[in-house]
């Protein structure tokens, strides 16, 4: 049997250190992508923040692998997008096959106005490490490793927790606590709060391998392939010669046996042969996955706010997990900074965070469940209709949209819409709205169309020179559009 190789990344180990600040404005529990994005966004806004991470390094293994354009826009505002583009493999579409036939070739929205790719592939350990290195450069951001947090209590003024470290235990208080401690959130469980929704029965095996190949980066889906009849297989190329393979287990397979290397590796070999990949390869990682589609009813509970997997668990199909958590972090950090800057006001911005991001989670769940119904059919009827669609799609183009994996996109809130990226010349230079937003972070961006500036930060565009922007935003009369710092345009 093949020997296991190692990821082309060695995480730095960090130890717990004695702490001095026993009260901080914001305590973040969990140092994953969501916790670190929140920390970076708050520190960029001048907020002192402490992150408590139970582990002693960034994560290991195969977890999130796709970062969406929306997440990249957020990282651009936080000043780290260049690192993501340097590490990540950009892609714009994918192909689905039924048996030996290509039945779908999809393209994500992408045109000459976009500055960022619709998606990049990058492993979660790199995502976390890029964010961590940026956090370590922020004087207002402190990371406490090997620090396991137990929820204590909250009053109208603060939250108290107990922190357990190899150096001993201590009590920590904070004005606000952000729970980013994952799907099994101990903060959520200690507060007696629940995730509600659907758990799927279908199981997928996740395998990472090392393979050198010059194949293009795109999402590949194989339905009922000859290498694994009756199954569905997904393949993603990752940076540095790592490939992620997900395949569905049959209902009658014993999951304990199916996850063993002796069961997995021959299937991988057979898949690679089918794909025409002839180079030698090495396995790195095997795990098993079951889809969940769950969310809390509210993410704001007094001075405790939930984000990412602690607040909602989404099926992997459509890559909404980490991306929706990064969106939570962006939205929350802006509203929390505003709340801290106006201590005499109520916590309304946090309630709005919950309204907007619960609505986003519901839409994400709706889309992700549709993807899951297709990728892991929950009943005989779903499986039957899926086979009918796949077997007709080659000759019936109108059915192909049913196969589309519905990759994540920015979600519309009840009273705000995501801005649309636009490229134009401004003050003699080619620029993008996203770049102007990033330059102003955390301030909003006002655009005056055929109007004088209404605010010191406004940019002024006239129809004669910026006809394309007017057209892209459907502007026909003088008007001012406000783009919030999180890239959303508010409306009634």
């Amino acid at each position, binding site marked *: 049997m093949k020997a296991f190789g190692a990821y082309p990344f060695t995480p730095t180990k960090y130890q717990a250190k004695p702490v001095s600040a026993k009260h901080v404005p914001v305590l973040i529990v969990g140092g994953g992508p969501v916790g670190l994005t929140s920390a970076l966004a708050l520190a960029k806004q001048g907020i002192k923040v402490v992150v408590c991470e139970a582990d002693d390094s960034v994560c290991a293994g195969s977890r999130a692998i796709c970062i969406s354009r929306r997440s990249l826009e957020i990282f651009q505002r936080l000043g780290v997008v260049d690192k993501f583009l340097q590490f990540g493999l950009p892609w714009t579409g994918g192909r689905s096959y039924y048996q030996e036939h290509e039945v779908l070739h999809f393209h994500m929205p992408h045109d000459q106005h976009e500055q960022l790719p619709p998606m990049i592939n990058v492993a979660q350990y790199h995502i976390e490490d890029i964010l961590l290195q940026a956090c370590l450069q922020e004087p207002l951001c402190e990371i406490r490793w090997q620090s396991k947090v137990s929820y204590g209590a909250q009053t109208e003024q603060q939250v108290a927790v107990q922190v357990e470290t190899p150096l001993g235990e201590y009590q920590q208080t904070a004005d606000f606590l952000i729970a980013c401690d994952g799907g099994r959130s101990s903060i959520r469980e200690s507060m007696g709060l629940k995730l509600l929704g659907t758990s799927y029965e279908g199981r997928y095996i996740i395998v990472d391998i090392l393979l050198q190949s010059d194949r293009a980066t795109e999402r590949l889906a194989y339905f009922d392939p000859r290498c694994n009849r009756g199954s569905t297989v997904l393949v993603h190329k990752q940076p540095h010669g790592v490939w992620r393979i997900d395949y569905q287990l049959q209902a009658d397979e014993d999951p304990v046996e199916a996850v063993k290397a002796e069961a997995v590796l021959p299937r991988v070999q057979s898949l690679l042969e089918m794909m025409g990949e002839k180079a030698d390869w090495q396995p790195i990682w095997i795990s098993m996955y079951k889809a969940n589609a769950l969310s809390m009813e509210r993410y704001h509970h007094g001075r405790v706010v939930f984000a990412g997997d602690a607040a909602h668990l989404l099926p992997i199909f459509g890559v909404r997990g980490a991306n929706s958590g990064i969106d939570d972090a962006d939205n929350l950090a802006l509203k929390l900074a505003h709340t801290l800057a106006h201590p005499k006001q109520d916590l309304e911005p946090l309630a709005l965070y919950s309204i907007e991001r619960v609505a986003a989670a519901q839409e994400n769940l709706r889309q992700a469940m549709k993807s899951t119904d297709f990728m892991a059919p929950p009943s005989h009827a779903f499986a*039957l*209709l899926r*086979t*009918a*669609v796949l*077997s*007709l799609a080659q000759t*019936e183009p*109108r*059915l192909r949209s049913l196969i589309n994996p519905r990759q994540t996109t920015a979600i519309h809130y009840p009273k705000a819409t995501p801005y649309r990226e636009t490229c134009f010349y401004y003050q003699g230079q080619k620029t993008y709205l996203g770049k102007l937003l990033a330059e102003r972070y955390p301030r909003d961006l006002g655009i005056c169309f055929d109007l004088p500036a209404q605010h010191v930060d406004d940019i002024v565009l006239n129809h004669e020179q910026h006809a394309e922007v007017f057209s892209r935003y459907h502007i026909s009369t003088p008007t001012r559009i406000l783009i919030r710092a999180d890239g959303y345009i508010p409306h009634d």
Partner: protein
Amino acid sequence: MTESELDQCYTELCQALSRQDTQGRQNTELGLARFALLAMLEINEPAKVRSLIHRAILDPSFTLPSGP
């Protein structure tokens, strides 16, 4: 469609599905599912398709036959 044309189409569907039936009951089911999808595209009206789904499957008066 006249009565005789309907009769002819009905018979052709039965015969086509019977041929599938000889290769396993699941092929009959799949044939019907493919037919339903193509019919959806031809009908091309969501309200009409929903109405047909309701009348064919969800209508409370629809009960499975007790015999073989």
